[in-house]
């Protein structure tokens, strides 16, 4: 039985682990409208969104198959809006990415995130984030505005490093940056397949599944998935990791 205090670094997923998406209709409609305004596309917000969705699907498929992530700039100039001049779209790519994500809904942190992050840090664990995401700026900005940036030693975003979970490289990169051997790292995520296989391949000491019914329904576990723990709230982590 491995001792939980052997764990020195705790890496957390973002989507559906620290934050959830609220499908706020008014917010979504406003985001679609802003996409039209920012691009100057001469079509309705719904039509533009539909067009972009078709292109995004191809990009997503490649990302998932090859475990790579385009930068924001590449995403918009090459994949999403190749019909616009590159020099016009490139400077807008960060804003466009945010609006595009906002078309899914409003992202809000789970209520106990901040308390848990502060407490784990106080108990002597190093904290990091590893997320598959298309945005390069929104997550760091959220961490800053919610006052949790200083508790995280490293933030690994697929859009910045170019590779995606479950490529073991991304977990190794995280371990390297935080300066802890993978065997002393734990990953906490909601995807039973990707997060389990990736962290195991990377030699992480432990994997904790954040049980999220939506993820389970969308990507049901195949084969044998054995997380070390299954949690239902962020604060369950406090029962797993005592003072070091």
């Amino acid at each position: 039985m491995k001792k939980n205090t052997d764990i020195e670094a705790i890496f957390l997923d973002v989507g559906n682990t620290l934050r959830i998406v609220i499908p706020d209709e008014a917010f979504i409609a406003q985001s679609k409208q802003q996409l039209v305004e920012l691009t100057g596309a001469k079509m309705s917000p719904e039509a533009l969104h539909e067009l972009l969705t078709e292109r995004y699907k191809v990009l997503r498929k490649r990302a998932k198959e090859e475990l790579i992530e385009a930068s924001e700039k590449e995403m918009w100039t090459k994949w999403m809006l190749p019909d616009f001049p590159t020099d016009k779209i490139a400077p807008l790519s960060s804003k466009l990415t945010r609006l595009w994500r906002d078309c899914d809904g409003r992202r809000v942190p789970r209520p106990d995130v901040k308390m848990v992050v502060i407490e784990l840090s106080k108990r002597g664990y190093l904290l990091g984030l590893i997320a598959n995401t298309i945005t390069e700026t929104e997550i760091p900005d959220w961490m800053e505005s919610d006052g949790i940036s200083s508790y995280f030693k490293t933030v690994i975003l697929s859009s910045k490093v170019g590779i995606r979970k479950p490529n073991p490289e991304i977990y190794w990169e995280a371990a390297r940056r935080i300066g802890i051997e993978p065997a002393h790292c734990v990953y906490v995520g909601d995807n039973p397949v990707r997060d389990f296989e990736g962290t195991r391949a990377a030699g992480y000491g432990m994997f904790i599944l954040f049980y999220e019914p939506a993820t389970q329904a969308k990507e049901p576990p195949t084969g044998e998935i054995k997380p070390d723990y299954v949690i239902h709230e962020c604060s369950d982590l406090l029962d797993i990791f005592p003072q070091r």
Partner: protein
Amino acid sequence: MLPNIEGIFLDLGNTLRILIKDEAHMARARQKIVELVGTDENPVTFCAKLDERYKVYRKWAFENLAEAPESEMWTHWLTPEFPAEKIASLGGELTFQFRQSMGRRVVVDGGKDVVIELHRRGYTLGIISNLIGTREIAEWMEEDGFTPYFQAVVLSSIYGKRKPDPSIYHEATRKAGVEPVNSVYVGDNLKRDVTGSREAGFGMVIIMISPEELAEATITDENRPDMFIHKFRQLLDVFPPRK
């Protein structure tokens, strides 16, 4: 700003229509061709030979931006070993069957509704297409009830020049009675459809392409159209009712 578009000119192949590889349909056409020509050769091998010779013809057509008259295509390029006087008179029928031997052409999903709606919204519609054969398109348009919606139908097989020669675009706008600058071309070919309609002074060019093909394509400042669409009916999102 969108230019003030009055005329919408459509490509046919891979835009308004797609080719379905219907084997039974193709086999019937191949049989018809050997009967017309009067050869004992196996229809499949004979038509395979025609396909090879057609490639040589296509190369000539591409290089010269020209289209030969049907009879000449057969007497000179496709079946030069058969008596010219007989073949020349069969040129029209042979071309029709040869096109059918490539597959069955069907209108894209929602194609007719979109055409009718664009017409209703006050746009002048036209067709500009590179193809061989002088009768197929007129017959198909009549049969499918497209004829009344198009003011101008310009085919390389009849006009003699091919896209991207600017004159074929100008012939279409002239027939339709609209200015090139107030016209849009909707096609599928990133090279000739974009450069050709731009050189002809068209106000706008739209390329219809699947998102998968778009992801594979290399887009440069030279071949970038004003817009990519993925489905024909998205034209309705781009062109609102004219005031």
